[in-house]
């Protein structure tokens, strides 16, 4: 490892903990959810046995959901009440620049543009990930609660709303799952540049070199235009 001074903290311990809790609960939610959605397939059946039956599957799913929602709430609170959280969120807001960056990234890859778009703390790629996951948690959390307390829910709404809600939950979860598996997995793991993975989620650190390459605007804001 290079000199300690060559590294910058990208994620704090608490941010890493949030990430850990979110991805582990999402994995559990995905497995238990897909098992139900594709219950007829052989893998679902073997998982169902592993999970200890259909009722236990539901309990695991709901426990993981509670963990996820609690973590999500913690994240929201930190955005609202901590300086760092607010800072984090401000950098995460989608701006006009992100659309331009996205278009430029495509042109850059196609060879129509010499220079890579200059990203700030969070690139448009990372923002897609963040917002997709965030919205999925909101959608799935709400529809999930409706499924959890179905009887209460059905006393207010007609059954077709419940049925639709069921479909929405199941498909929305599929979208979320695919975003994670395809988008996130490629960008932080399989991408040749970071393969086998971007270690920032473990160490919370990013080298200055990496920062200058992937987040030049942030680098310049912190260390000026010259060499750090």
């Amino acid at each position, binding site marked *: 490892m290079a000199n300690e001074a060559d590294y910058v903290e990208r994620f704090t311990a608490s941010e890493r903990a949030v990430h850990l809790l979110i991805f582990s609960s999402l994995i559990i939610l995905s497995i238990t959810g897909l098992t139900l959605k594709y219950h007829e397939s052989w893998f679902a059946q073997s998982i169902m046995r592993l999970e200890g039956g259909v009722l236990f*599957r539901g309990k695991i799913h709901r426990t993981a959901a509670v963990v996820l929602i609690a973590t999500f709430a913690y994240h929201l609170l930190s955005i609202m009440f901590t300086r760092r959280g607010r800072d984090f969120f401000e950098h995460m807001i989608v701006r006009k620049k992100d659309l331009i960056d996205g278009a430029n990234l495509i042109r850059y890859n196609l060879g129509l543009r010499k220079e890579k778009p200059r990203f700030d703390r969070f690139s448009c790629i990372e923002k897609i990930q963040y917002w997709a996951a965030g919205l999925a948690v909101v959608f799935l959390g709400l529809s999930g609660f409706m499924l959890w307390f179905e*009887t209460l829910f059905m006393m207010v709404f*007609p*059954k*077709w709303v419940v*049925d639709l809600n069921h479909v*929405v939950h199941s498909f929305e979860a599929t979208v979320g799952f695919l975003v994670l598996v*395809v988008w996130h997995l490629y960008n932080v793991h399989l*991408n040749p540049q970071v393969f086998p993975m971007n270690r920032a989620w473990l160490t919370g650190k990013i080298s200055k070199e990496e920062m200058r390459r992937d987040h030049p605007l942030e680098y310049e804001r912190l260390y000026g235009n010259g060499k750090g």
Partner: protein
Amino acid sequence: MKTYMVDAGKKTGICHKWLFLILLILCMPPLRVAAAGKDGRCPSCHEGRAAGRRGGEKQATQPMTTGLGDSVHRALACPECHRDAGAAPTHKVPLAKVDCSGCHEEAGRLFGRSVHGAALKRGDKDAPSCTSCHGGHYVLSASDQRSPVFRGNLITLCARCHTDVEVQKRHNLPSTEAIKAYENSVHGRLLKEGRQMRAAVCSDCHGSHLILDRRDPESKTNREHIPEVCGRCHVQIYNEYKVSIHGRALKEGKAESPTCTDCHGEHTLTLVNDPKARVYVANVAATCAKCHANQTIIVKYALPSDRYSTYVGSFHGVALKYGDITAANCTSCHEVHRILPAAEAESSINPQNLGRTCGKCHPAMKEAVSIGKVHVEAKKESSPGMYFVRKFYVWFIGVLMALFICYIALDVYGRIRRRRHGQ
């Protein structure tokens, strides 16, 4: 003592007439026992050491296989059954087969119409006659535990021929396995363990003298008569079934309408809590699906389609499939025997009654105002909301994935291109 009673009467003097009558009445039973079986001249050839020897040169006499003992026929004299024995002291030719219908007219008439009777008339060697089941000389009452036709012994009796593979082959009869399955059925077990001697035995369902092929409209085991046959013991259930759509349809001659055995089986019939039973909670849906997912029947009777697939895909269906036996199966909502169409006011699935029906498991639902459609097919015509939401997501996911893959391909392409250009 070794004389006919009539003869005994003649020998008695007039003055002793009254005394004799009293004596006669007092002595009658033992006297008759003594007379029967040893009556007349028959025993001199057919009984004891004489039997089998005193038949002249060519023909040996047939020994009596069993005595009359305490048989129901103990009071009868030989010629009362062997009518052709008559008064002749000896007979050169073997006596004809006894015709029981001389006395047992009704049984004889019914037996004559039965499959067994018909086979016997044809001269079928396998066909049973009266004596095959009731015994020859030593005939006991069917209520006597020692009788082969006693309820508890019927299985053994019928199985004697019906588990004979050769007989089965010759007459295209059900296999031994099918017959023997009865022993593990709830009826068979109740009987065997002696817990319920009224449990159905062969004759309760198939008849005794009048056993007919099940295709015969008069047969007890004809589809149309099965509910009545079972209903003789299962009265309450029969009354429920009778008014159900299945019961009514069967009466109207709709042959596909399920009768008791279609769901419960016959010889394999087990209790509802046996996991192997067709009516076990986890198997109910598949049992109903035999007809309700059968395209021919669905079309023929204009039944709602997709009942089974929509159930299997529902929470109830999935929960039940993976072992939550408390999850609703078909009968939880549609009732078991008293299944009525939703349009009927008394139906458990009539919209007016759905709250109560769902409320059986979901107490809070008792007051639910609008339950709505339960079997949702997600078809454009019947459930457009569901249909379009699904369509939207399928497209959305498809397009999203296509975009992701394009992005990844582009990213990889860009890297390769830049490396080639030495950047």
